[in-house]
């Protein structure tokens, strides 16, 4: 192998080294709620094993985009594909409600900022995890119990509390139950919507550490939405910066924070304490 230094080679577009295809591809996603244009021609690409961070101010469209990734809503226009084993590519927004539910149960996990959105607060913690497994077709009580236990343990939830109801738990513990539920079926994609917002600093560190370990050990692909630049900087490989429903900048996390190219990103980075 040699470096070809001819002018023609120098002018040639850089070849791609990455052999893997993207896991997630969204193209030209737009969504309007009444007079509000929540998403404007958004493209997103996420590769297997990476953590994609999405930052932006409140109302920038980042959580709306995450909900689209979780097939909770349908855009006015745009395509969404996930490269999954034994599944043909196709626009996931064309799926029926039942098909979406089954696909999400098997392949997509989500942790919401508000645990009330992700958990049945009056069911046991282990029951919340088992519910996810039930939707995906698991029926054996022993298997359900064992898998729920394994997922809670991987999320660093104290197993002595696995039968406690989320309503009896602290915010950090509730997030761990959500996380256990999300990873119980080893999803291809884990969506995290402000998972540490509202937690005190020490609990936030615990949750982030757990996420980092899961990502390293299980190679789970993650999309992390946060307005906390420190969280994104700690976790993300690449970053999308959103404003007014548009992606204004995208790049490697360290590049976006150290050499932001867009005026808004510079304001965001300079405003960080």
């Amino acid at each position, binding site marked *: *192998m*040699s*470096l*070809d*230094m001819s002018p023609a080679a*120098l002018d040639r*577009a*850089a*070849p*791609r*080294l*990455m*052999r893997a295809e993207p896991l997630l591809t969204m193209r030209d996603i737009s969504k309007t709620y009444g007079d509000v244009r929540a998403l404007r021609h958004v493209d997103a690409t996420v*590769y297997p094993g*990476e953590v994609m961070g999405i930052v932006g101010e409140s109302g920038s469209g980042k959580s709306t985009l995450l909900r689209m990734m979780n097939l909770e809503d349908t855009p006015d226009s745009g395509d969404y594909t996930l490269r999954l084993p034994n599944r043909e590519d196709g626009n996931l927004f064309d799926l029926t409600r039942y098909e979406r539910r089954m696909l999400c149960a098997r392949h997509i996990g989500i942790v919401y900022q508000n645990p009330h959105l992700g958990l049945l607060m009056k069911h046991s913690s282990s029951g919340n995890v088992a519910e996810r497994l039930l939707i995906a077709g698991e029926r054996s009580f022993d298997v359900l119990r064992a898998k729920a236990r394994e997922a809670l343990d991987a999320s660093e939830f104290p197993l002595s509390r696995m039968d406690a109801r989320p309503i009896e738990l602290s915010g950090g513990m509730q997030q761990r139950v959500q996380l256990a539920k999300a990873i119980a079926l080893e999803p291809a994609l884990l969506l995290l919507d402000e998972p540490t917002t509202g937690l005190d600093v020490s609990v936030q*560190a*615990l949750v*982030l*550490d757990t996420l*980092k370990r899961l990502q*390293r*050990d299980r190679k789970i692909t993650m999309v992390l939405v946060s307005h906390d630049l420190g969280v994104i900087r*700690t976790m993300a*490989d*690449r970053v999308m910066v959103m404003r007014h429903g548009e992606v204004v900048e*995208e*790049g*490697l996390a*360290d*590049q976006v924070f*150290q*050499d932001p*190219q867009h*005026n808004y990103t*510079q*304001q965001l980075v*300079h405003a960080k304490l």
Partner: protein
Amino acid sequence: MNSTPLLRVDGLTKTFRMYHLDSMLHAFEGVSFDLHEGEFLLLRGHNGAGKSTLLRTIWRSYLPVGGHVWYRSNHGDIDLANAADVDIALLRREEIGFVTQFLNARPRVAAQDIVAEPLLLAGTSQPEALDQARHWLDQFGVRPELWRAYPSTFSGGEQQKVNLARALILPQKLLLLDEPTASLDVGARAALVRRLSDLKAQGVAIIGVFHHPGDVAQLIDREINLNTKVVADQSEEEDNVAL
């Protein structure tokens, strides 16, 4: 030595656009040089000459505004200046290392786990990765009682030892060093020079910025002075090439 360079920096130019000042800051312009396997290139220049900026532009923390950084990777030749982000991320995992003078200590992560992480990401088993992590922490003079402690509470010098152990645990093809000896004690400096010497002998190409270049004097093959933009070969001064 392979006559084909591992890295060819060609006309590299970096300018920062500062919106809040409505101005541009020119860091450097038209920098060119070749780097071969096993070569050690020192970047010289006064404060603000652009030494660290040049390293960060090659690493792609900074986006160049002009020029090329051709690199001979195990996957094929690529222009780092224009490569896709995912390709840069791949090369950072596998082939190119960057050592700063600051440790990015994550909360609640023990020193030995921070050091072992690059090996774990590369697929090494946990016991083997931890063994190697402890070995390198020991080499850089971090006391065993600190191996399971959280570095966020360490002194600057101790943090830098953890940082070096992590950065140098996995052999790379290209190493970028940004003042790695700052805040190190004599023993750790000696350990760093030994490790760099071994890596150089294994063919690792190194570009470094050092506050005290004397620390690594015996390793330097060539140097670039960013004040004058002159490349100087340590053994053949008459072959200086103006950039």
